[in-house]
């Protein structure tokens, strides 16, 4: 039988969870080269909502936790082949080859298509965790410092209870199909704005040579299906953003931000005039959940 038992109702647990959820932020940027194209991204996100359920098997389950992408910027760069003239044969040889050919002149160049998808929302589809108590020794505490001195100095030891995820499953971002039109317009604008003084006939020759812009872009990037699915795959799998976010969320709940923490020794009576505070040492702290509440037990001594 434990000396101390405290409990938090499921409603109270939800409030505790909401508080640490709201403190979660994540940002990252990266770039890579993938043969015919290169890409870079910059993301920043926070969490909202989520349905929390306490289970009798000692687990906490969070479903439909929203990921709000405050920043989701992607830039894809590739070489626009444009319009080539020349390259044909001036003097053919008798064996169906070419003795003399005209050098080829190509109008085109590298193009970067920046896409701003900030504001999109995806979700942590499922997060399942156990409660894990961890004893925390404040690194600021000096050797030989008493519990009382540590409290006065503001760095007492603590018992911390973390949500230790068993699994985190993040859904891929659902990039809208309208991104295809956006890409098409960006490429067209880039061609039209290549030079402020570029004559219309050169622009039209380029656009005519390119043909349907989306077909060209898909061909250059090796996209077989829809461009929005390709972009999702680029971010989530090629850059492994899905795995990175899952790890970041798991690490945040499991090791960075406890759902609750107790000071050790635990203050029972505050300091009074001429009296030092009364504190009791806590040992063998354990934390569990059932469908109704979170239960924390501990011994004194």
């Amino acid at each position, binding site marked *: 039988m434990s000396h101390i038992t405290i409990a938090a109702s499921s409603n109270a647990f939800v409030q505790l969870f909401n508080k640490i959820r709201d403190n979660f932020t994540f940002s990252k940027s990266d770039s890579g080269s993938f043969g015919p194209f290169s890409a870079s991204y910059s993301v920043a996100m926070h969490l909202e909502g989520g349905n929390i359920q306490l289970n009798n098997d000692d687990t906490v389950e969070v479903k439909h936790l929203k990921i709000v992408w405050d920043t989701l910027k992607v830039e894809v760069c590739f070489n626009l082949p444009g319009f080539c003239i020349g390259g*044909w044969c001036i003097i053919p040889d008798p064996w169906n080859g070419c*003795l003399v050919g005209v050098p080829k002149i*190509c*109008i085109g160049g590298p193009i970067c298509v920046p896409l701003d998808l900030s504001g999109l929302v995806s979700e942590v589809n499922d997060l399942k965790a156990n409660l894990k108590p961890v004893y925390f020794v404040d690194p600021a505490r000096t050797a030989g410092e008493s519990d009382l001195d540590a409290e006065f100095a503001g760095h007492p030891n603590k018992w911390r209870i973390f949500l230790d995820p068993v699994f985190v499953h993040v859904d891929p971002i659902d990039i809208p199909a309208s991104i295809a039109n956006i890409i098409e317009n960006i*490429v067209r604008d880039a061609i039209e704005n290549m030079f402020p003084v570029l004559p219309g006939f050169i622009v039209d020759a380029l656009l005519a040579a390119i043909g349907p812009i989306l077909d060209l872009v898909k061909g250059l990037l090796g996209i077989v299906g829809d461009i929005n699915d390709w972009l999702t795959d680029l971010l989530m799998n090629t850059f492994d953003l899905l795995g990175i976010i899952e790890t970041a969320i798991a690490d945040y709940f499991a090791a960075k931000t406890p759902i609750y923490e107790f000071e050790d020794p635990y203050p029972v009576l505050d300091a009074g005039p001429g009296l030092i505070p009364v504190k009791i040492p806590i040992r063998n702290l354990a934390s569990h959940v059932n469908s109704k509440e979170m239960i924390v037990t501990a011994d004194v001594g």
Partner: protein
Amino acid sequence: MTTRLKTTLDPNLYTQIGLDSGSLTMLGTIVHQLGEPGEYRGALHHGPDVKAVFFILADSNSPVAQVTVDLAGLEKAQSAAPASDAEEWCGCAGDSKDSSGGKRYAVNPRGYVLFHVQGGQGGYYVHLRRIDAAENDKGYDTRTLKNGDAFTAMILRPGAYSIRNTLTKAVAEAVVRYPIIGDKPYVPPAPVRIECTANGFDIKGRLDLGVGQGLVFNARTDSRIEIKLEKPDDGPRRPNRGRTGFQKVQLA
């Protein structure tokens, strides 16, 4: 959002309208067969100035069927050379630098030399002469295409053009159609081949060309080809891509 497109487009491609085989620019090339073995010295001219000197060895044992000479590159290399090498040369016989300095090429005498301008405004012609030629041999000047030479031209600017052989007074007309943005990428049609004889061009009627389509003028007599824009075709009206400035609101 800003989109960057760093283009490789040389503005001379669209600012130089019209071509002249005697003043080579980016959209034209000249093909010449040396015929006789030996070492040839070439002088690159821009107007009266000699911009560079180069050498071509016509070697019967050479397997090279085509040598491509970038005239703009020659001028650039020459201007970047040390001052002692960059002295003005006349390109004529008796020049003290006959066999020193300058870029060297080799080709089979039955092969072809192709002169072209990779970039820049061009306006070049070339004077080629065998180093051991007799004093009265004036050599070959690209301003006068000889029998067997070819001049190629590509036209980017849509419109109606006149084509003249200034040495035979032959004339022809060509129309370059405005490009149509369609469902399939536009590819310039195959080049049109034109014989230039003493009796004129072997063209029947007006030439109908696409943007960037090639023209190959095969000289069968002394020729100098000039292609001149007579009437531009600006295509359908385009939306103004520049800033419009202040415009008073017109009330209906």
